[in-house]
């Protein structure tokens, strides 16, 4: 399973980056390929390319604020979660993804 994700929190100082790493680390353990774009105080980093999005099976939006350039994912299957969920129960987010894929 290939996943792309976006993390974004209100101040963009801490949780955006913690959530991004949490998702990457957990995915790695589960053998899932993931790329996470952060939208924080430093702007957009590790930006998802058109190709990244095209190849992904599913999009995880871990955001407590409006995501920038959300129109990129209009035709994609999306899972919307809060930043807190991404930090505290990343595994259940991935199992939700797997369920949706079936």
């Amino acid at each position, binding site marked *: 399973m290939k996943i792309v994700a976006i993390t974004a929190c*209100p*101040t*963009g*100082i*801490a*949780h*955006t*980056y*913690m959530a*991004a*790493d*949490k998702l990457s*680390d957990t995915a790695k353990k589960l053998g899932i390929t993931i790329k996470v774009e*952060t939208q*924080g*105080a*430093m702007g957009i980093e590790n930006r998802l390319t058109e190709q990244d999005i095209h190849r992904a099976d599913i999009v995880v939006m871990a955001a*407590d604020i409006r995501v920038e350039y959300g129109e990129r994912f209009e035709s994609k299957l999306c899972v919307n979660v809060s930043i*807190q969920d991404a*930090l*505290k129960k990343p595994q259940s987010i991935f199992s939700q993804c797997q369920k949706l894929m079936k």
Partner: protein
Amino acid sequence: MNKATPMKNEFKFNCSLVNGIHARPASHLEKVCKQFDCDITLTNLRSGNTGNAKSVLALVSTDTLLNDPCILTFNGQDSEQALNKLTQYIHNEFAHCDQALDKPGASEAIVLPQSLLRHQPTLLQGKCLALGIGKGRLIGNEDINLNLFRTDIQYDETARFDNARQQVSNSLEQAVQDADGAEKEIINAHLAILNDITFVDDIQKHLISQSTANAVLASLEIVSEQLKQSSSAYLRERIVDIRDVATQLLCAAYPEINITTKLTLTGPSIVIANDLTPSQFLGLDKELLQGLVLTHAGSTSHTVILARAFNIPTLSGIEAAQCADALNSEVYLDANLGVLAVQANQGVRCYFDRAITLNQQLSDKQGAYAALSAQTSDGKGIEIAANIACSVEAQAAFEKGAQGIGLFRTEMLFMDRSEAPKEEEQYEQYRQVLQAADDKPVIIRTMDIGGDKPIDYLNLPQEGNPFLGYRAVRIYPAFINLFHDQLSAILRAALHGNAKIMIPMIQSIEEIRWVKEQIEIVKNRLTAQELEFDNDVPLGIMVEIPATAFIIDQFCQEVEFFSIGSNDMTQYLLAVDRDNDSVAHLYNSLAPSFLRMLDQVVSTAHQYGRWVGLCGELGADAKVLPLLIGAGLDEISMSAPKIAPAKAVLSKLNSSDCKALFDQACQCPTINDVQALLDNASASQESKPLLSTECVLKNADFSCKEEVIQSMVGNLGLHGRTDNTYKLEEDIWAREAVFSTALGYGFAIPHTKSEHIRDSSISIAHLNKPIDWQSDSGDVDVVIMLTLNKEQGDQHMRIFSSLARKLIHESFREQLRHSKDEAGIISMLEKELAV
């Protein structure tokens, strides 16, 4: 208008005093009027009130405010002379005998901190009169019921009153001797009331048919009524001073009537009173008095001035009825926030106890800088000294950290009086300063009189251009006795300490040689009189006339030290009168020409082994300090309150960086270039590192989330990383309101991007006991607070984000939790975050 009668004269003017004619200017005016025999009355054409100009109270009762049209009428023998003198006095001096009273407490609305409000405190809002935070039992002070003194005529009431007045007068005279500063001024004001013609005459009139007590009370009532009608709040507030004097008179007249006017404190107390008389305030134990609520006092009340001098937090604007229930219970008074907290619950107590600790730490920190020896970070010492104008300032200057007196302006001794001070009086003043200095150097500058500092009794001519005219050393030959007396007083006083003599406005070698001849003459005179004196008092000159800078090598053969008067030097060097609005913008001591002059003077003097200081406003400018250090000055002298901050700035400077900066500045073609150079240097200089042990709180005893945030933000304030702790805290809490920043695993990361943090900071607290972070992620014992400056941007943000990413790893968290001390935490973070 009786102009035909030669004996009667009058003079019309508009009152130019900001606060109107209150006690202080009234006593000046009274003094001038008392020199004449004729009757002098002041009539206020606005209020229609008339008063005897030889009585402070009568003058005050005319209710004269700013811009009121007034007439002084003179009637009697010497009215012609009186008219001339008073006309001159009102035009030239009266306007300057008072100044606007300072009102502390910014008008900007205060944001009450969330860490207090979240505990749901019961707060009474007041108005800050004197800053600070205190805690104690709320003690009420009942006004004394003066009617208890009322009695019938007993025997010789005139004698009873005269004795009482003499007694009070003696005890006030005694108190004046022991007091200083604000306290002294207020006791003097009370003495003036006690000697006031109108007040005393009025009492004596009543004494014909009444007892002393009834007469005093009747007069008190009349004067109070008059003042109550006044449109000036300042004058209405004087009622309490008169009541104070009346009470003292009554107590002295009837010692058998046992009235406790003295409030005795038995433990830490906050005193609430309608208004406290200054003598009641002075009678309180200042060790126990933690705060004052004066329900009706204004910011100009004498008691409030005293409270500020004694650092007692003080509020007004709270009614006694509002806190009747809280009497005799423990309360907190936070004048910084303008609140009195009653019925404090545990959380509220926790907030204020922490606030008191933080406040104490802040004043200790400032105090510590005062005590520091002044040196740069690389250990180059420089003397930071104080400028003073009278002897009573000396003690306070040394307490504020002065390492010497760099400029004792003696002309104050000669001003505002009818004749020059005698040698003995001068000797006494110089000796007091030298003794307060305790062997630290004291540079006594001989009188800089003339020009813009006129002295009546010298009859110096009016001049078109006083700054280029007849002043300072230039007048000494014509007033040779005055100069000899001053030299004599200094040479004798010098036996009591480390005195130096400095001559102002020297421009040629001829002048300094003449001065040296005079010193020899005075020494010979002293030897002939068999009076002891110090034969080796160093002689120096002010370097304020550009001419001296060109022949400084020749001056090195004549004198032992130099002090650059930056104000006058800038003015003369650039040919700019800074009081002239059309050219004032050209006045700037950062002019490259000024800096090169400075370089020339210091380096030449040092070649000859001579010492160079600088006195003037330039020295107190923190931004310019690196240049002055770079120039190689041996001493900088400034007003006393600037000393501790200057030492703090100095301790962070590197002397070789300063030298390089100064050399660069001397090469700048324009003032703007110098300014830009300094701005650049201060931007890189002032920024504090993101990670520092000063932001690590190990083994912290915090009992709740509110206390953690209050303390961590307060700590940033303590180290100058934020100028507004309350607003920064507000931003932190705004983020907490979105969702709790607890991470789980015992960690929490409160954070904000704020305009109220000066330098981006990472703060860490290790708590002794885990606390509830008000989240579902369990208790917290490690708090990492991230405060990002909105302007400082990406570089810091990169470190913040990398720290955030690391925090999700258990191994990193464990390292952080188990680092054994502040330095360990910082070095671990620096390594992990590659700072």
